[in-house]
């Protein structure tokens, strides 16, 4: 069960897609990640109001708190950079775990109500002016996140089709959002600014203390992540195959959700829901290396998450210079279109290769072929036709091939 199964997953996955990147893209991935990380780290450390040229950074750090540049770099910029890296890595890994466990390319914390729940857990004591010790805050965030995610999965049922889970998640997220807005309406002006900035995911003015609060959770989450990665790559074969291989699918899925919650909630408690990183990072990892399994994607997804947050933090800090914009707004603006484009470029190749079904992006072969888990196994084309038939009381002719619509 622990052994990473080599590649039966690849035969089923998005492997032989029409537009898969060439071998070159795979070898470029480490270079690209490294370049992005280094460049954005340098920008994060050196640009800003006391401009510290890159070659003097080391000197500034060694000076410590004797010079202004030293103080700014060690006390403000380095913790911010570290926080961006850690938060991005956590979100990226959590996104991959969620997507693989639910076998759903759109299962992101934002759409499952996890982020909204965590935000609610953090914002409520702030508005209701309850004074709580700082150590409780991550616990509240975790409680909220587990509430949101659990509610979604409970309401949707675990083995349902991806879009059912997503729509349920959208409903739960909307309800939590409404509760949050009620809190915000009750808040006074100062609290309101604080909450609003926090809700968008901001990395400004975080210090070493905030980062120190993250470590205990990471100590729990990282070993669990390492343990669950091989199970994830079995899970994507479909529940029946996974159970035949000795994985208790439902239990594994719940464990994966718990890990994702433990990864997301502390990050959300510190810097707010930095939106859509958990969506973009796994898709980037997959696009660059479509034949690998979850074990290989996991570190890359974390790396991409770190890169995305670090890159987004640079314009967040500098774009509208005296005012800081929240990093979450930038990741939402850039992440969603990019992620959708990646998903479509992967999905279209697959759809063209497989049956002319409807399920292009949402129902790739691995979801369509094994979308029904506990019930009767259905064939994929049949499933697809039923999807179109679900379109409403009045129906289109069922046999229309969707591929032509893309061409038109």
């Amino acid at each position, binding site marked *: 069960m622990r052994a990473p199964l080599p590649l039966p997953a690849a035969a089923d996955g998005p492997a032989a897609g029409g537009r898969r990147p060439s071998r070159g893209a795979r070898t470029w991935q480490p270079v690209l990640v490294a370049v992005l990380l280094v460049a954005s780290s340098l920008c994060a450390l050196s640009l800003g109001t006391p401009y510290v040229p890159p070659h003097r950074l080391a000197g500034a750090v060694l000076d410590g708190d004797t010079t202004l540049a030293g103080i700014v770099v060690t006390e403000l910029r380095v913790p911010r950079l570290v926080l961006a890296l850690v938060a991005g890595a956590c979100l990226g890994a959590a996104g991959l775990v969620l997507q693989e466990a639910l076998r759903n390319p*759109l299962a992101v914390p*934002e*759409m499952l109500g996890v982020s909204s729940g965590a935000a609610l857990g953090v914002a409520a004591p702030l508005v*209701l002016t309850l004074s709580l010790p700082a150590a409780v805050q991550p616990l509240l965030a975790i409680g909220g996140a587990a509430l949101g995610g659990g509610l979604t999965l409970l*309401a*949707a*049922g675990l083995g*349902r089709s991806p*879009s*059912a889970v*997503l*729509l*349920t998640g*959208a*409903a*739960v997220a*909307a*309800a939590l959002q*409404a*509760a949050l*807005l*009620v809190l*915000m*309406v*009750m808040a006074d*002006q100062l609290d*309101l*600014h604080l909450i*609003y*900035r926090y809700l*968008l995911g901001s990395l400004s003015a975080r210090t070493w203390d905030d980062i120190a609060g993250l470590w205990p959770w990471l100590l729990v989450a990282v070993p669990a992540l390492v343990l669950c990665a091989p199970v994830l790559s079995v899970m994507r074969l479909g529940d029946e195959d996974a159970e035949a291989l000795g994985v208790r699918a439902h239990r594994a899925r719940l464990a994966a959700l718990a890990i994702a919650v433990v990864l997301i909630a502390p990050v959300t408690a510190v810097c707010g829901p930095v*939106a859509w990183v958990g969506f973009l990072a796994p898709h980037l990892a997959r696009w660059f290396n479509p034949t690998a399994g979850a074990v290989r994607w996991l570190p890359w997804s974390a790396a991409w998450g770190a890169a995305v947050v670090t890159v987004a933090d640079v314009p967040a800090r500098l774009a*509208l210079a005296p005012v800081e*914009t*929240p990093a979450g*707004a930038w990741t*939402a*603006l850039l992440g*969603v*279109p990019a992620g959708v484009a990646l998903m479509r470029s992967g999905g279209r190749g697959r759809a063209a290769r497989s049956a002319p079904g*409807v*399920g*292009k*992006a*949402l129902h790739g072969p691995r979801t369509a072929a094994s979308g029904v888990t506990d019930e009767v196994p259905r064939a994929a084309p049949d499933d697809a036709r*039923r*999807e*179109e038939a*679900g*379109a*409403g*009381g*009045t*129906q*289109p*002719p069922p046999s229309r091939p*969707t591929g032509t*619509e*893309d061409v*038109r």
Partner: protein
Amino acid sequence: MTRRFMALAALAVVCAGVELVAGRGMSPGVVWDVVNGGGDATARHIFFQLRLPRLLVSLGAGACLAVAGLVLQSALRNPLAGPEVTGVTPGAVLGAVTATALGLAGWDSPLAVVLAACTGGCAGAALLWLLAGRGRGDPAQTAVHGVLVSAVLGGLTAMVLLVEPGELGSVVQWLVGTTEGRVWQHWHLLWPWALLWGAGAWLLAGPLTLLRCGDDIALTAGLSVRPARTLALLCAVALTAGAVAAVGALGFVGLLVPHLAVAVFGADLRVSLPGAALVGAVVVCGADAAAQLSSRLPVPGLDAGRFTLPVGALTACLGAALLLVVVRRTPSRTF
């Protein structure tokens, strides 16, 4: 059918009555006095300058949203289309917020707000159109894409609000949708717009009913599909923009009320379009009355009068619950 209309109209009257007496300011007895021509100046002011326009605005906005939702669902043949999930509402919010932040519009020039909201709504719909392709694929997939578009537009709105934080307090209320503090100005702006586009939707009811049956049938019946659909979409966007400019983004009204209306009045839009308007008015007005009643409840931990429930929060929770029921009850469908 007439009986159903009568029943709904009676329900609307009841909701309106509850809404008029539900507020915190004065007791039902005083309201009765004012209606009979008595009451002191304050009571008269509260009744005629605050409660009446609020009631009318909530009725009008509900009707607008419901009609817009029904038109969208029919034109796109997608049961999950609605102003909220097709990017129209978030786009309209973005347009209005941007125009206010740039100083092009404000509460002193409400028409500009409506126009900006309209432009934004069109932009949001166009964005979804680009993203989801022809918009006629899998309905659930289009809805999911719509949620993504909403996320992008929400991010943009947030950026604008953070750059121009001056009116954050009032805008937040508006983001969730509230009828708090609506006065005659809002109503005077809402009704001509709603009447104009509502009449347009009414004229399109026949073609829309054909469009519900599918493009092929509509073509065979002699309808030129493309202009009809474009006009219908324009109508829906304009109605949504009017409602958003008046009360803000009321959650889920435009998505779920049309289903209710179709269930009650059938799929012939010539009947169910006015029906949807009525149902929407009832729902929003009733939710507003419930929200006002609930703000009278004593809440532990808060001083009295601080707890106000925006009507949008109530409709969002209600709609979320309904959506959950719908998703759970239709296991064979994919949404």
